[in-house]
Every structure is written in structure tokens, then in C-alpha cells.
């Protein structure tokens, strides 16, 4: 799927020569990237990586500075944008699938997916289902069967709360097995690292994690991956791991990392930033930087990304309603 986008992006940004982007005469003044995390958090990495790449590869002239605004996986940032910078053309805000999950559950205050302009992605990570190397589960079918027989017999855990994006991966597998996700024995940990420790320690049997955070243990043969929750197989160390869909379970979990801009930003600014992202996709220096940020290729900008954002939030809202983790008033 993302191969096609790369092709489209290459055609769109035909000129590979690094000249600063400029759509309809718009050039940003003191551009900023808002990272809804403290320095060192995931969003911080998204912002700093993108800012560095856009500046160093000559796509955006003025230096982009990263501003940190932690709180509620983006809730504080969307509030700030809508309250104080509704029309600011010089700011982009990092967003992820985790933000969409919270947005769908009504945790972004009164703001919805229609209160920003969705810009595009810089890449994605994908969900994986990890077990210890000596696990009784050889493939996804073993796990699904065990869950079908007795969901309580398979303790699983990941780095997020019930209702979070980490939990949703487990919920999708349960649904694929035709089991109510509420019956899973899901144990939340403080971050993926601690969940991995619990998996290696044998306290949980299944860790629905992200591809990047399990790569080291996979390469060292400490763990086995039952499935990647991606549309296609992933490259490199993951190439021998089948997708869930290959194994007959309709579960896909793409952790998108991208950006939005304020709802009242003019079209010229929107086009400028979309164009900048497309140039980034096409630049030969980008893949190495993206890999360094632990992201797989996933290029999508402009209208297509907006549609994805709205479709995903609608899906997550439906899932949250079905499972009952949604806030009552929404």
C-alpha cells in the first residue's frame, strides 16, 4: 500500500533538486513544530526529526523550532491551537494514532477531528504480537484458539491503559477471534519496556507491542513474533513474520506519525506544508533519517491523510462505544 504512495509522491514532487518549497508565494515566518510531549518523548522525536530533515535537506528555508507542550497525548496542544492560534500558518503539530484513539474517546475536551487541518505523515510503526521464544503459541491461530477457549487463560500486557492504543491491538485480536475484548486478561504496564521485561520474565504470555520496540529482542531470538499487524509484511528483520491477515485474522494496527495545522490556517500555508512533506518523501536523504527515528515508510499527505484521520477516528469511536471505554457525555 505505501509503495503506491511513494510512487505518487515521487511523481508529484518531480523536481528532486533541493530548492525551498513555496506554494503560491507562502513562506513561513519563524516556523514552529509543537510536540505534545516533553523533550525525549515520542512526539518530541517526531518534531525534531522532521524539523532537522526539512531544514538540512533544504526543503524549508527558515529554521523550524520545536516547542514542547505535553499533556493528554495532544489534548493540551489541540486546546492551545484552537484557543490561541486558530489561523497561525507557521505552526505544525505532531500527531499519532494514540492521539486519534484519545480524540475518539472524547478525551480532547470539546475538540474533534474536524477542528484541525490534517497535513500528512512522516512514517509509521506497526503493531506486533510478541511471545517469548519458548511460548506454547507457535502462530496466531494457536493464540486465537486459546483465547476462544478461555480468554482468561492468556495473560497479556503492554505499555498503555485499557482503552489506549496498546490495548486496542489486543482488543482487535480478541475481536478477530470472535471474543469480547472485555473478557481479555490485559495488564497495563508503565511503558513498553516494562511490558517487555514482564514478557521475558514470564509474567505475561503475550505482548502486543510495536515493531520498533521489539526489534532488538527479535534479532537476539529472545522472543517470537506471531504476527505483524500491518497491511503487508515488514522489511528487514521482520520479513519472515506473517501478517495477521495472512493468518485469517482481520487485525491491522498502523501507528501513524504525522502532523496537523490550525483549522483556520490559509490554503496557501496548507499547500506549502503538504508540498514540503511530499518533497521530503521524494528526497534521497530522507529514508536514512526516517529509519533512525524508528519509523517504517508510510507516506500520505493532503486530502488522503485527512480522509484517513477521519475514517480512523470514526472506527475508534465505534470500537470504544462497543467496548464501553468512551466517556459518557460523548
Amino acid at each position, binding site marked *: 500500500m505505501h509503495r503506491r504512495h511513494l510512487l505518487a509522491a515521487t511523481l508529484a514532487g518531480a523536481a528532486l533538486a533541493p530548492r525551498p518549497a513555496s506554494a503560491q508565494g507562502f513562506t513561513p515566518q519563524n516556523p514552529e513544530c509543537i510536540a505534545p510531549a516533553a523533550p525525549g518523548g515520542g512526539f518530541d522525536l517526531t518534531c525534531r526529526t522532521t524539523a532537522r530533515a526539512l531544514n538540512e535537506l533544504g526543503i524549508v528555508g527558515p529554521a523550524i523550532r520545536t516547542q514542547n507542550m505535553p499533556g493528554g497525548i495532544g489534548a493540551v496542544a489541540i486546546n492551545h491551537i484552537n484557543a490561541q492560534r486558530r489561523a497561525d500558518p507557521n505552526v505544525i503539530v505532531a500527531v499519532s494514532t494514540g492521539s486519534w484513539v484519545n480524540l475518539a474517546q472524547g478525551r480532547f475536551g470539546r475538540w474533534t477531528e474536524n477542528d484541525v487541518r490534517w497535513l500528512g505523515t512522516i512514517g509509521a510503526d506497526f503493531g506486533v504480537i510478541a511471545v517469548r521464544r519458548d511460548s506454547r503459541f507457535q502462530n496466531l491461530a494457536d493464540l486465537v484458539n486459546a483465547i476462544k477457549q478461555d480468554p482468561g487463560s492468556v495473560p497479556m500486557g503492554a505499555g498503555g491503559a485499557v482503552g489506549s492504543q496498546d490495548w486496542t491491538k489486543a482488543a482487535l485480536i480478541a475481536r478477530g477471534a470472535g471474543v469480547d475484548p472485555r473478557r481479555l486478561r490485559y495488564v497495563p504496564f508503565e511503558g513498553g*519496556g516494562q511490558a517487555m521485561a514482564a514478557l521475558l520474565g514470564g509474567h505475561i504470555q503475550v505482548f502486543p507491542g510495536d515493531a520498533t520496540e521489539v526489534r532488538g529482542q527479535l534479532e537476539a531470538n529472545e522472543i517470537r513474533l506471531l504476527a505483524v499487524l500491518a497491511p503487508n509484511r515488514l522489511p528487514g528483520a521482520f520479513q519472515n513474520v506473517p501478517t495477521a491477515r495472512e493468518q485469517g485474522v482481520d487485525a491491522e494496527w498502523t501507528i501513524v506519525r504525522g502532523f496537523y495545522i490550525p483549522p483556520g490556517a490559509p490554503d496557501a500555508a496548507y499547500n506549502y506544508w503538504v508540498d514540503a512533506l511530499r518533497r521530503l518523501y521524494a528526497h534521497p536523504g530522507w529514508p536514512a533519517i526516517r529509519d533512525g527515528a524508528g519509523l517504517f515508510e508510510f507516506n500520505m499527505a493532503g486530502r488522503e491523510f485527512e480522509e484517513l484521520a477521519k475514517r480512523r477516528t470514526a472506527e475508534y469511536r465505534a470500537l470504544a462505544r462497543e467496548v464501553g471505554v468512551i466517556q459518557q457525555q460523548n
Partner: protein
Amino acid sequence: MDSIAALMGGFAIALTPTNLGLAFLGCLIGTAIGVLPGIGPMNAIALLLPFCFALKLPPESALILLAAVYYGSGYGGRITAILLNMPGEPAAAITTLDGHPLAKQGRGAAALAVSGIGSFVGATLSVVLMTFLSVPLARIAVGFSPADYVALIVFALSLLGAVAPGNAVKAWAAGCFGILLALVGIDSGTGVERLTFGSIELLGGIDFTVLAIGLFAIGEVLLLLETRLRATAAALGHGERLSLKELLACVPAMVRATGIGFVIGVLPGAGASVAAALSYTTERRIADRAGTFGKGDLRGVASPETADNAAQIGNLVPMLSLGIPGSGTTAVLLGALLMYSITPGPLLFTQRPEVAWGLIASMYVGNVMLLVLNLPLVGLFARLLTVPAWVLYPGVIALSYAGVYAVSNSPFDLLLATAFGALGYVLRKLDVPLVPIILGFVLGRLLEDNLRRALSLSDGDVLALFASIPSLLLWACTLAALVFPLIRRKV
């Protein structure tokens, strides 16, 4: 032995002029970051990463620099904690208990010296342990189950009364209050919002830095302001310097603290603050025969500072040998490796020995640097107190607030810090100890999370909490800690 040969290879890397210089730079930055209350090592490392790329540093050099910032920060937090009663980093909150009374008696320089030496001892002994036992230790650490964590945290909490023995009721109330503060935010077990009062800013919980700055720094300033300022620095400089005899008296405390700190640090689910707290309270129970702890006992400074640095090094063990980040800071260090296309994880030692062993060797060097850097400066730091209050305190407050704002851009956090400041002032006036609030805050969340994890895994069976050898040992310690003082009182 393999480890020794590999370590020698590591020293060949760590001792090149560039890497020595980078380690030194990292130690300087780390110490400064430790002093700055708003910005922690995790933030600093993330901010330094682009700088590493701009200088085109090779991965081992970058890691040597970044790691030096990390363990260097453990040396910085004590300075303001001892001199001004304002901890610069979480673990240093414990250091205020004995450090600040010492400074008030004019022995700030001695306290700084002991804490510097303790930090060095803790860090260096831990690096030695790490050199030889990294992999087996990490294997044991991941075996530590949620039920074991419950027993560990209950043990730490059972010593809470030791923080303020004369005032147990208030200490317990403060501890409970700290626990409740930690519960603010989204409940990880169910996704329900607790004690947020509908505030978006509180969804992610209360930031430790905001709480500590408010209770300690702001509260302290407000208390100072209500008295007619009799020269705050009256006693300074007249106190005796640290004698060899005093230092030797601290050695057993340092050795115990290293053990406690390192073991807790290796566990992926605990941290340096837990280590410092547990070490201090244990030491107080064991060694406070004359009742001098809390009134300015050098051992009460040596213990938490040693444990803090030992735990920081211990925290690197699961990261380096299993690729498991036990804390936010180690997660950022792992991310830095990833940026250099190095897969962090169990294969690091075999595939990229220059990175793993270069880092370990550089930690021996870096800690010597930090000691050499810190000891001569002790007198200079202590002179901080001769700076007029009207220069010192505006600077400290502005630095704290600006630091918080720079990483959060949140006016809400500053208001919250001010509110905690007012609370800190009132609680001091009421003679309520503040450190139990910090301990409750750090331990409370850990306790609830692990208790619920353990009972979820056992399907509600409470006996699972007593099912392993580590947990039984820890429960026995808890029992001893609760009973022992009662027996001693009768004797």
C-alpha cells in the same frame, strides 16, 4: 576473563582524547542539569542528540557524552538540596533531610563533600558489578514479578515512619496525601479519569517536578519571607571541614547504599528515587542509635546520594544487556542508539562491542572526573550561601519556573507549582514533614499499579502476593521493620 579483556578494549576507546573530552563535557552538563530543577536528564539528552549529529560524532562517542550527562546529573541534584533545601532532582529530596540541617550548622561544605564521595563510591562500585554481572543480573531482574514489586514497595512504605519518628501521625498523613496526588489522571487499569476535576491538564497526572519545586523551593522562599531576614548565611563557613574519621564513619552506610541502590536500579520497574528513599530509611533504622538522623547526620547524606548514583548505573543494566529501558531517560538513550542504526538489545555486546564496552569503560573514567570536578568545587558551591538573598532567591525561583515552562509551555503547571508552594508553606508552619509526601507520590502509583497487575494475573488470588522467595523475604523485612522499633523501645 573475557570481561576484563573486553573492558580493556573499552578503555582503549574511552581514553582517546576526543572521548575523554566528551565525557568531561557530559559530566559538566550533567551536573548543571542536576542543579536545574525544571529540566531533567531525559530532557537534556533529547536536546543534545541533534548536537551529536551536527558534530558527526561516531555512535560510541555520542553515547559516552549522553551517558555522562545521565550519571553526571546524579551529582548535581544534591547541591541545592543541601544548601537551599531545594532538591534539583527527585532523588535529592531525601538528601534535604540531613543535608540541609548540616548546611544550617555551617557544615554545608562537609555535606557536599560526603555526598560527592558517596556518589562516586556508589557509581563506581556499581559499574564494577555491571562489568562482570550485567547479563545474569538482568535475567534475574526480569524475573521480579508484579507481586514481588508489591512486597518491595510495601517494605519501603513501612519505613515511612522512620522519616519523621517524632511525628508519625503527620508523616503518615503526608504519605497518604502524596499517594493520592499520584493517583490524579487516567487510571491505567480501566481508562477512568480520577481526581482530574475535568481538567485536560491533569489527564496525564501531576508532574513530579512541579510538585517538588512547589513544596520545596517555593514553600521555602515563602517561609523565609515571613521572618525578618536575619542573615541566612550566618553560620556559613565557620563549620568544621570533613574529617577523615567522619568520612570513615560513613563507609558502612555507603556500602549498604550501593547494594540497595544497585539492586533497585537493576529492576526495570523501580527507580533512583525509590532507591534513595529505601536506602535512607533502612540506614536510619539500622544506624541511628544516637538519634542524630534528621538533625544533620553525615550518614543521612551519604546514604541516599550513594544509592541514587548506584541506582542510576543499575538502571543501565537491563537497557544494555536486554534492550529494556527501565525509565524514561534510558528509553531516550536507547532511542539515540536507534538513530545510529544500532539495534539496542541483547546482541549489543557481541555485535557492537566498541559501543557497549566503550560506554562501560567511560563510566569508570567519568566518575573519577566527576569526583575530581566536584571535590575542589565544594567550597565554591558552599559560598552560594554568601550571595545576598535578594540575588539568590529571585534567581532560583525564576530558574525553576522558566525551566518548567520551557519544557511544558504550560501556564497551568506554573500555577500548580505556586499552589503547591503555598501548601508547602502552610505544611511547614504546621510541622508536617514534606518528604513523606514525595515518597508517597513516588511509591503510591507503583504500589497500586503493581498490586492490580499482580491480582489481575492471579485472577484475584491474594495468596499470589506471597508466592515467591523474593516476596517472602521482603514481607519478612517489612514485619521486622514494623516490630523491631517496638521491641527496642521496651528494652
